[in-house]
């Protein structure tokens, strides 16, 4: 059992605040992804949990034990680094066995565990080699095997796939998901790649400016962003935003009337590009750029002076300058308060 509780963890580097009092609970065996652009504090948070960085404030609990004052070796964690950190002077076998030898396990147990994790990570043929004789993907596998062999309560991963080439990344992603689900450890995984986050996570925590903006399952994050930043960050192309004016009948967006939440003042109307379709009525749009992507057309339009992107069927014959109407799927429209940048629910 290894539930992770982060209570009011904050970190300042001199005048710079990397983390503003973060609170989060990660359930036992959950796969939590910390997602955000570089400098958002995700790696700092991970390193505080690992004990490689000390928090300026707050507490970290793992499995009901407060661990923020303990050195990394007493926290029951294993970590996979972005640059793999495979020890170059040791063979693959000794790398994987390193942590087990530190625990002074009997030699037969060391051998058994190394063999088992090596088979799991498909590196059993490489056990006699040195890191310099391995490819990037193989080094990555050694780093993961070394962490798994520890049989830790918690595995922490800091952008483990970002140094691999695209095809290998795809392959490792699926493999990691299977292996980590099997191993029954709690995983915290840091990445800036939203597709990676979506495909791996039980839950994603979106971080921005040292704060967690939203922590929810991937589909909820995608469909119901809690903040404007989340909508604009997740999705490729990201969510469209248009200003909405309050009228007695409802909300007008680019001259069109929509039903919306009961709220004072102006709001922002938000819709994902794939939730728009051409229709007789709807947002009046002038086509600017048409990018055929095979199954879809990515169409950039001009709506009331704002750029708006729509993913449309590729059978449509559209040319720059065409005037069309785009109808948003009514149940997919979201509203944000431009003052707080938070979602407003009807």
């Amino acid at each position: 059992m290894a539930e992770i509780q982060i209570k009011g963890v904050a970190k300042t580097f001199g005048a710079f605040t990397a983390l503003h009092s973060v609170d989060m609970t990660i359930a036992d065996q959950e796969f939590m992804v910390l997602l955000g652009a570089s400098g958002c504090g995700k790696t700092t948070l991970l390193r505080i949990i690992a004990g490689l960085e000390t928090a300026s404030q707050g507490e970290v609990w793992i499995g009901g034990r407060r661990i923020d004052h303990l050195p990394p070796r007493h926290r029951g964690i294993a970590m996979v680094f972005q640059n793999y950190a495979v020890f170059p002077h040791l063979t693959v076998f000794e790398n994987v066995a390193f942590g087990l030898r530190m625990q002074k396990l009997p030699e037969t147990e060391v051998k058994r565990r190394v063999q088992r994790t090596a088979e799991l990570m498909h590196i059993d043929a490489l056990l006699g080699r040195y890191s310099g004789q391995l490819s990037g993907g193989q080094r990555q596998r050694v780093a993961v095997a070394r962490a798994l062999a520890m049989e830790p309560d918690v595995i922490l991963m800091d952008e483990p796939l970002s140094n691999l080439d695209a095809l290998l990344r795809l392959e490792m992603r699926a493999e990691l998901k299977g292996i980590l689900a099997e191993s029954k450890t709690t995983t915290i995984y840091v990445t800036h790649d939203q597709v990676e986050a979506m495909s791996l996570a039980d839950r994603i925590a979106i971080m921005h400016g040292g704060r967690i903006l939203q922590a929810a399952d991937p589909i909820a994050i995608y469909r119901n962003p809690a903040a404007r930043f989340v909508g604009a960050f997740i999705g490729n192309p990201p969510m469209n935003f248009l200003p909405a004016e309050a009228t007695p009948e409802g909300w007008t967006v680019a001259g069109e009337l929509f039903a919306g939440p009961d709220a004072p003042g102006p709001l922002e109307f938000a819709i994902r590009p794939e939730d728009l379709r051409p229709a007789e009525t709807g947002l009046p749009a002038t086509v600017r750029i048409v990018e055929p992507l095979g199954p879809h057309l990515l169409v950039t339009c001009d709506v009331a002076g704002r750029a708006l992107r729509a993913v449309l069927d590729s059978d449509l014959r559209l040319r720059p300058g065409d005037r069309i109407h785009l109808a948003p799927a009514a149940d997919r429209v979201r509203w944000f308060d431009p003052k707080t940048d938070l979602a407003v629910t009807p």
Partner: protein
Amino acid sequence: MTDTATIRQRGRRLTQAAVVLLCGWVLGPIYLLVLNAFSAPDAVTGFPKRWLPGFDLHSLRMFVEFQGVAEALWNSVLVATLTMILSIALGAPAGYALSRFDFRGKTAFRVLVLMTRAFPLPLLALPLAVMFIRVGLDDTPLGLALVHTTLALPFAVLITFSLFSGLPVELEEAAWTLGCNRAQAFRKVILPLVLPGIAASAIFAFVISWNEVFAASVLTVQHRTLTAFLLTSLDVSPLPLKFAGGFVLVLPALIFIFAVRKYLFAMWGIANR
């Protein structure tokens, strides 16, 4: 097209000529030194010169049997070894701290490390001689080794600093998460990786001490090192003896510099591979 090709070719010829000239400049005297050290004593003073050494060991044998040479050689080795040990014992931890920790005055400290080389040795040697006489360190190998250590230390600090900086911090951090404390991580992961570089840095300190002559002359009287001994004794010796002495002095330095060239190049930021 042809014009640029000719210009490029001329440029290459010029570079080659410069390389040959520089190599000749450095290697010529060394060659003459070796030539004369291995020639019979009468060939050394004779003229015209032969261009190949006669492999005559008379001069060298004469030099080795010369009164006081053996003791001076022993003193040199002793002082250089002490310098080597002291420089690494003090320099390597400083290099590690510079590369791994952030502390107030780090930049100032780095400059100060280099500043120790800014003072001319004569300026330091005479006051030091007085001080050494007071505390009883005068004319001892340890006293001289301390002075040589101050000369070698900046290099030890900077070389080890670049060694430690060349190792990703993540290697150490990985070791910590895998059950090591700081000392264990250093011993099991960092030390094996920097050992060749540390050895090179140690040898460099050895050579600095081996070649140093000024402090050695001022601070020792009875227990001269080889350089100091040669400076005072060989002045009045016959020519073959001088060549033999010069050869014995140059040889270890040449071998050591050759052995550590990779690290020296790395230190000066020249790509070696």
